[in-house]
């Protein structure tokens, strides 16, 4: 077995036993990147020099007999919208092409304390706006299961890197499904934690009330390990929750006896690929076999989730992205002769089409005279969506749904934006309600991985981790490797 195909917990044991060194491991990852990156195109920026320095440091710590944390010396990849001090952070946008942050995101600080290794920054949809990674200014990322297909998005680079053996683990961010959907498209595990579980400080904001950072990993155990490091209240983020963080690995028990699993019927709607649905229903059967109680439930306001999301998220984005004006950092049009002209031209030239579309949408819905009809109404509907979940969680402990109604589609697929937006119907309600959601592999359709989503109560990551771990241990799907097939 190749080093680059292993999990965090396997490699951690090997490091501790001195069977491998972190430098060896890190080099193995860069060799792998060298071999497949031209096919996959997962990264925007690599940082080999610092990664190897850090690996050498961890090797010294091990040699000195020091106790090391589970992520120490194990190379991961960071989505390029998470601020890394001294390392270019672009959000895959022309407007931040040469932007080098002056500070570390809170999650990066935590990961550094645990002596982990950052291989580089991964490609994404520009400012996390998209679900294909095709809106990146730099490049198109390819799905390692079939290079002709999309890796999903917006954390497509992070998912593809983990799937293709170009990183052991990765961080993504999820505003409407951007961790879970690419995890499902790439046959790996991805968690969006409860809103407020992880500090957003240093995550370049797309939609502040929805954004959440989370892990993309090869199995549930690794996801729990990354969560242990990145979760927790942060004085720099007022929306981070002042609650204790459990040791998530303690939740990893093979036990779903009596667990009440709800299948929300609205998440299996018209657009759902029957082959995807089949895999989810098989998973439900598996849970029954394992002792869980499975029931159909209803979240009646689900049909409004996508449209209200496309009011709230662009509204917040229109303000969040206003700071990219060419004044302090980032791309600047140098021919402009006045400040307003400079800002206009820098933004016109610096942002791509999808970002502009959403800024315009957001600006429109907040405009005087439209606020009540759109933004205010959308916020009211959001409350109804939350209430649906509150009601349903009185009857069950977790919800089981397809992560995406479809498997990864062709890179050449011509879909209008609205059709693409509607595919987020299974992930968006979870962000709207601020709940934790995990996607894990549960089968294949047309040779592509299918992901199932488990949704939990607020701050109850432990139950979805336990349910996910139990399923994972009872199945083999997580052991499949992406073949890097298909001609690019």
């Amino acid at each position: 077995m190749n080093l680059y195909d292993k999990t965090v917990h396997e490699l951690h044991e090997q490091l501790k036993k001195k069977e491998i060194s972190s430098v060896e491991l890190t080099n193995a990852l860069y060799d792998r990147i060298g071999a497949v990156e031209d096919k996959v195109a997962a990264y925007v920026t690599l940082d080999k020099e610092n990664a190897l320095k850090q690996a050498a440091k961890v090797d010294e710590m091990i040699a000195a007999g020091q106790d090391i944390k589970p992520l120490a010396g194990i190379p991961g990849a960071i989505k390029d919208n998470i601020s890394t001090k001294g390392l270019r952070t672009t959000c895959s946008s022309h407007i931040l092409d040469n932007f080098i942050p002056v500070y570390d995101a809170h999650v990066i600080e935590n990961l550094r304390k645990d002596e982990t290794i950052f291989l580089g920054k991964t490609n994404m949809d520009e400012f996390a706006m998209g679900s294909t990674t095709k809106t990146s200014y730099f490049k198109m990322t390819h799905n390692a299961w079939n290079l002709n297909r999309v890796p999903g998005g917006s954390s497509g680079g992070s998912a593809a890197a983990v799937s293709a053996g170009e990183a052991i683990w990765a961080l993504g961010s999820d505003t409407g499904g951007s961790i879970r959907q690419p995890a499902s498209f790439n046959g790996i595990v991805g968690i969006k934690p409860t809103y407020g579980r992880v500090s957003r400080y240093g995550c370049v904001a797309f939609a502040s009330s929805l954004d959440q950072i989370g892990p993309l990993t090869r199995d549930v155990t690794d996801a729990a390990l990354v969560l242990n490091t990145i979760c927790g209240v942060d004085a720099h983020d007022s929306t981070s929750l002042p609650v204790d963080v459990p040791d998530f690995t303690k939740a990893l028990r093979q036990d779903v006896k009596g667990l009440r699993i709800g299948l929300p019927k609205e998440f299996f709607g018209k657009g759902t690929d029957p082959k995807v649905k089949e895999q989810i229903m098989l998973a439900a059967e598996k849970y029954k076999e394992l002792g869980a109680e499975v029931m159909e439930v209803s979240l009646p306001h689900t049909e409004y989730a996508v449209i209200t999301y496309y009011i709230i998220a662009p509204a917040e984005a229109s303000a969040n992205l206003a700071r990219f004006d060419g004044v302090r950092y980032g791309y600047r049009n140098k021919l402009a002769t006045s400040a307003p002209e400079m800002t206009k031209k820098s933004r016109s030239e610096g942002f791509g089409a999808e970002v502009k579309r959403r800024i315009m949408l957001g600006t429109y819905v907040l405009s005087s005279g439209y606020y009540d009809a759109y933004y205010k109404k959308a916020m009211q509907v959001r409350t109804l969506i939350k209430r649906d979940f509150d009601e349903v969680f009185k009857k069950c402990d977790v919800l089981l749904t397809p992560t995406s109604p479809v498997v990864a589609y062709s890179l050449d697929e011509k879909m209008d934006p609205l059709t693409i937006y509607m595919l987020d119907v299974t992930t968006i309600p979870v962000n709207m309600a601020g709940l934790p959601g995990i996607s894990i592999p549960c089968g294949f359709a047309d040779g592509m991985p299918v992901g199932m989503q488990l949704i939990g109560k607020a701050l109850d990551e432990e139950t979805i981790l336990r349910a996910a771990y139990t399923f994972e241990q009872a199945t083999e799907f997580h052991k499949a490797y992406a073949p890097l097939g298909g001609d690019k």
Partner: protein
Amino acid sequence: MKNYITVVGLEVHAELKTKTKAFCSCSTEFGAEPNTHVCPVCLGMPGALPVLNKKVVEYAVLAGLALNCEIQKFNKFDRKNYFYPDLAKNYQISQWDQPICLNGHIDINVNGEKKRIGITRIHMEEDAGKLVHSGLTISTSDFSAVDYNRAGVPLIEIVSEPDMRSAQEARAYMEQLKAILEYTDVSDCKMQEGSLRCDANISVMPEGATEFGTRAEIKNLNSFRALERAIEYETERQIELIEDGGHVVQETRTWDDINGVTLSMRSKEEAHDYRYFPEPDLVPINLDDAWIDKIREELPELPAQRKERLLKEDVPEESADLIVSNKKMADYFDEGAKGTKNLKALANWLLGDVSAFLNAEGVEIDDPAFKITPDHVAGLVNLIDKGVLSSKLAKKVFAEMLKDNEAPEVLVKKLGLEQVSDAGELGKMVDEVIAANPQSVADFKAGKKKAIGFLVGQIMKQTHGKANPGMVNKMLTEKLSQ
């Protein structure tokens, strides 16, 4: 021509005196090197988030209580969106539809007439940075630089009702507001440094009209005088427009202090659509009653209360108004009052010679350039009251005190200025002057009462003004009438 009534409402921005900024821990200190009090948060770096400084809320509540407002327990912040290079995030964190304070008032006194001016609301927000132009003005500059030291400094915006009817009333409101903010110590209130700024909404309407005219908003009013002049100018401009058959358009105008005119900045059509919406990076806060009550208990004596106190001490109303309107002066007065019983005289000294010096130097009473301590002014008052110094000599002593704050008692001795009030000594002088000036004595006895003035003058001259003139006069009259 009809008679017109001016209608004025003021929007006042006061920078709060917190040590650190509203949403980050950068210093708020004024006058530092450009862009040295900045961090990712106040520079609007990608990914940075605001965290509310609790002191901002405390100061806003304190100001609200001092201005007789109702404090709103539920508070949230909103984003006010507009593009400007000095606004790091291109939105300002402010409060829109739910301000922290509502329905307050200030009582003003103009020409002896009392009037209550309503305060509509007070809300919290952050300040922007500052553009520094390479030339004198923005239009004549090759480039502009931005200093973000001020970005994120907390402000409160105090919006009045359109209750003022003249430039004088507006000035009185502004002065009283400034005094109250200084008393509560929530703001430095330095208009020249921009820590207190004012915009005026001005309209005119014919006498007897029931509806206000169309208003113009005047910006850039950096002094009380600018406020008064701008209102006077704008009133005239609007009346002339109407009299000439035109009409006032709703617009934003700027005050040009050099030419004494207001100039159009932008019309209503060009006005910003700020697209306010709730700030998702900050959580709403609920103030509890106990906390508000604690702040209420911390409320210091306010100008109106202090004035009442001074009136009880026999300080004339006009003097009391002047003293309490300047907190530093009022504090100085209170210190001085510990050393003398004659508060009326103390007030006269502060508003007379002391103010004359301060005005000439262009400084405030707490400036190191003014060296005299309050106890020494009180001492000077006491020396006059005891008859040790004439008021004329007291002025001489005061001039010496200004140099290095020596005690007046010491200076009187040092300068040999002690008034001669010794009856024996004065008697001898009286006898001598009578003997030496037979003609004047004869004149006096012949009924020319004025002749005594010459004799008093001789003694004063001889003693270099130190003889107690009252006693000399009395003794001479007695002697000559025998």
